[in-house]
């Protein structure tokens, strides 16, 4: 009888709290449809790893390796899962809007401001180490795989809460960005129309572009090459025109399988001992600030450019420079339509949004280069 009760008697209130958090993640994924591909497996994983003395994770008392730890060592410690998922993301990205208006590249750069501003702020107000601060700052990249990749190298102990924060805030972009943009712009600025002259982009340009990005990132931010290389490989599958089957597999089967494994595996770091501490609260708070700073960086940069430009830019487009693609560009278009139903800036915002995807990976690579 004591064997049957052993698990229940070892159950702590902290584990109960974690199970509730797991339920909350599943609720957000299923009911609110916030990043369900990650939050649902992660939510269930959080419940599983918090059963006392279970065989699902390695228990210090028995030393028997749990299946989730095996997956963690194989897929996260080796960086395999975030990299493989990047092949799928690359296959989903259309660089067309960016190539039609390459000037939007600059907004991708400006909207990474939140990463570094957050690091400085964390260092100023907490006693955390710089690698830990950098791992929290990368949440502002608004790019899940990059956050996992960087945090896995710089602060593996914080991987669980960083992943939860990164994916949760990406899902909350429609709630986070509008008030920041509204606070930093006037109605007149939000109503600025931008001329859209669609240029024809040749197939050759679309094939060469991912290769050129790989060369540039490979030489200037070599630590970002695994991410950029896999991302651009995925994009090449899409654009080359002779690998449609592989492109479809990367976009669907590969992304689906890795998402299942990634969500479950990250839950290894969602045990009560690793999650319930002050650092998690800091990650949640500073992650949100990072998204706010990113948005502000993009908007203020656009406003600065407007001081020198004859043809004005709608500053809201700057906010789309964060990497949360395509959600951010849709949010910007929705705000533009709200101010003026005839204003169509989606293609400009999409260009900035795609450039944010490239810039966030480069930012992750530069962060790693700084420490390694």
């Amino acid at each position, binding site marked *: 009888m004591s064997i049957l009760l052993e698990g229940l008697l070892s159950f702590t209130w902290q584990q109960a709290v974690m199970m509730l958090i797991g339920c909350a993640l599943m609720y957000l994924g299923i009911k609110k449809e916030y990043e369900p591909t990650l939050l649902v497996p992660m939510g269930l994983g959080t419940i599983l790893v918090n059963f006392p003395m279970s065989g699902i994770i390695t228990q210090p008392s028995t030393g028997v390796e749990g299946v989730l730890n095996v997956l963690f060592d194989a897929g996260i410690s080796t960086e395999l899962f975030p990299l493989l998922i990047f092949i799928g993301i690359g296959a989903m990205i259309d660089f067309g809007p*960016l*190539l039609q208006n*390459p*000037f939007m*590249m*600059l907004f*991708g*750069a400006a909207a*990474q*401001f939140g*990463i*570094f*501003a957050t*690091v*400085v702020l964390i*260092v*100023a107000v907490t006693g955390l*180490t*710089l690698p830990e*601060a*950098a791992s929290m700052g990368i949440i502002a990249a608004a790019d899940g795989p990059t956050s996992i990749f960087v945090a896995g190298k710089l602060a593996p102990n914080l991987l669980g809460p960083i992943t939860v924060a990164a994916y949760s805030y990406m899902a909350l972009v429609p709630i986070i960005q509008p008030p920041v943009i509204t606070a930093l712009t006037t109605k007149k600025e939000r109503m600025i129309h931008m001329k859209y002259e669609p*240029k*024809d*982009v*040749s197939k*050759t*340009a679309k094939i*060469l*572009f991912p290769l*050129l*990005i790989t060369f*540039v*990132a490979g030489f*200037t*931010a070599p630590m970002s090459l695994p991410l950029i290389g896999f991302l651009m490989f995925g994009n090449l599958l899409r654009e080359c025109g002779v690998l449609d089957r592989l492109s479809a597999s990367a976009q669907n089967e590969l992304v689906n399988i890795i998402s299942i494994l990634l969500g479950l595996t990250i839950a290894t770091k969602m045990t009560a001992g690793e999650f319930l501490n002050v650092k998690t609260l800091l990650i949640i708070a500073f992650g949100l600030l990072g998204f706010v700073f990113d948005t502000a960086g993009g908007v203020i940069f656009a406003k600065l450019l407007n001081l020198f430009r004859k043809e004005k830019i709608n500053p809201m487009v700057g906010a789309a420079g964060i990497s949360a693609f395509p959600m951010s560009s849709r949010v910007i278009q929705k705000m533009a339509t709200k101010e003026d139903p005839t204003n169509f800036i989606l293609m400009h915002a999409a260009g900035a949004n795609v*450039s944010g995807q*490239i*810039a966030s990976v*480069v*930012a992750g690579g*530069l*962060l790693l280069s*700084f420490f390694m």
Partner: protein
Amino acid sequence: MSDIMVKALELMGVGMGGIFVVMILLYGISQVLLKLTAPKKDN
């Protein structure tokens, strides 16, 4: 100013500077690429 703060500010300078360099480089390259590979227009 503490050492760690100096390092954090250095990281910000290197990071933002680096990103702008890379993105400006990509901007220039894509302009050249678009010129070189412009689709031929039918008369």
